[in-house]
């Protein structure tokens, strides 16, 4: 009896050891692929940051690079997507991490790398880092933004707590500029249709306009004119990639200081920056965030907004739906949809 118990204990210990070894080796080890080993080099990975690293391969590889995070609650999130046309041994990559993620999966050129992130989470860090994580964990980003035609020109801050101010900013401030040129095209089309309908040879009844009856060649000029107006409206109405930013002053005792944020819109290369900041902000539109808390949102297709414009290097951040990063000529760019909204906290505050 005692012998059987000892054997069971031995087997259990062996299984636990195997399991532990497997878990330990899983962090950073090559998964089955084409025999090429991948490594992640650079600064240590930290939650609530945009992490920048170098993906190194034991042999030159080419093709797609994808970084996905697996969440503790299940499900995968695509964090980085890139394509290298020429063979490479090292490629710069970047990705957002927070404590909701359990592991990281990197696929490149047919090889795979899985990293266990569980050791990065929790409060088992140096006290300063633990304090930062505690404060970031409490900063919940609003869920989404948009849904209004006209943005509020300003936001009164007096007496508002930061989360309430963020919800108002997301709902009322993060609204793209109106496509006025496209609206003008629509007005012209409506006017043209009304004038054509009121012509003496126009219809005697109904909205259709009996002058329309007839062979196609007679209709062709009008059809072509409406088609041209439609194409012009489409080109002018297409949403321009937009980076929204609301810069909140430091809070005092849980509430924001009095004052208000005012809207400023500035065109940038390839995108538009819509920023709300306190009046008399010295940095001016697009200035670097310094010692501030900012709510940022991104509505842009891939490869258009430089990561440095979204947040300064080293700043802490927390997104509910993180931006997708991509690499172009060694630089990192961010893209996002209507759900890409989050907090940026300058680490030096």
């Amino acid at each position: 009896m005692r012998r059987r118990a000892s054997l069971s204990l031995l087997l259990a210990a062996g299984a636990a050891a195997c399991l532990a070894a497997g878990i330990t080796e899983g962090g950073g080890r090559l998964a089955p692929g084409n025999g090429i080993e991948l490594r992640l080099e650079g600064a240590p990975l930290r939650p609530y940051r945009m992490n920048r690293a170098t993906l190194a391969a034991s042999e030159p590889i080419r093709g797609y690079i994808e970084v996905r995070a697996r969440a503790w609650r299940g499900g995968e999130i695509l964090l980085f997507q890139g394509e290298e046309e020429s063979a490479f041994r090292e490629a710069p990559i970047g990705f957002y991490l927070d404590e909701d993620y359990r592991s990281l999966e990197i696929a490149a050129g047919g090889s795979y790398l899985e990293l266990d992130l569980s050791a990065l989470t929790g409060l088992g860090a140096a006290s300063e880092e633990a304090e930062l994580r505690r404060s970031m964990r409490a900063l919940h980003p609003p869920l989404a933004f948009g849904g209004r035609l006209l943005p509020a020109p300003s936001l009164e801050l007096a007496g508002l707590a930061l989360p309430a101010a963020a919800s108002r900013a997301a709902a009322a401030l993060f609204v793209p500029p109106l496509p006025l040129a496209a609206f003008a095209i629509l007005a012209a089309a409506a006017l043209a249709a009304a004038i054509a309908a009121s012509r003496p040879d126009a219809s005697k009844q109904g909205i259709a306009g009996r002058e329309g009856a007839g062979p196609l060649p007679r209709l062709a000029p009008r059809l072509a004119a409406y088609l041209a107006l439609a194409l012009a409206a489409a080109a002018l109405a297409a949403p321009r990639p937009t980076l929204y930013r609301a810069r909140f002053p430091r809070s005092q005792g849980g509430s924001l200081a009095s004052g208000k944020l005012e809207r400023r819109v500035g065109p940038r290369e390839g995108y538009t920056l819509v920023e709300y900041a306190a009046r008399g902000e010295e940095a001016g539109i697009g200035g670097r965030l310094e010692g501030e808390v900012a709510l940022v949102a991104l509505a842009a297709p891939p490869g258009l907004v430089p990561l440095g414009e979204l947040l300064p290097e080293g700043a802490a951040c927390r997104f509910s739906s993180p931006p997708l990063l991509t690499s172009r000529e060694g630089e990192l760019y961010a893209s996002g949809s209507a759900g890409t909204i989050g907090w940026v906290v300058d680490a030096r505050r």
Partner: protein
Amino acid sequence: MRGARALRKLLFLAPLSAAALLAAALPGGPGGAGLSFAAIAAYVRVCAQFAGASGGEEALLFAEALPFLAFCLARFARGGPAGALLAAAEAVAILAALLLAEAAARAERRPLAAAFLFVALAAAGGAALELARPATLLGAALLLALVAGYVLARRER
């Protein structure tokens, strides 16, 4: 009388203007382009039904609605102006194919059934706008338009 005709035309375009304003206010997301296409195509077809418009008149009504439809599609399109133009081209191709197919099928003999069928096919076209690849969709629409055009041309002879 002239004023009344112009007013009727503006009344016809008023819901389309409202749709454009709504599309400008809504945040972009999947499904918006297909839904816009299906709703606007159904609305114009129903208007054509009530106005007794068919053939060239019906095509003209759709052409008048086209800038508004293109605006709505562009607000939901991905890929900037190029994506918006592609979505508009797809919508034009689907509408042209549907109108030619309707004419080729002698749908004026059963106008109500034709209207129902058109609305159902427009809904399918909206789904295809969202799900199908642009090349596949454009190819299928052009093929349908070619077949319908051939049938119409043979009948003319």
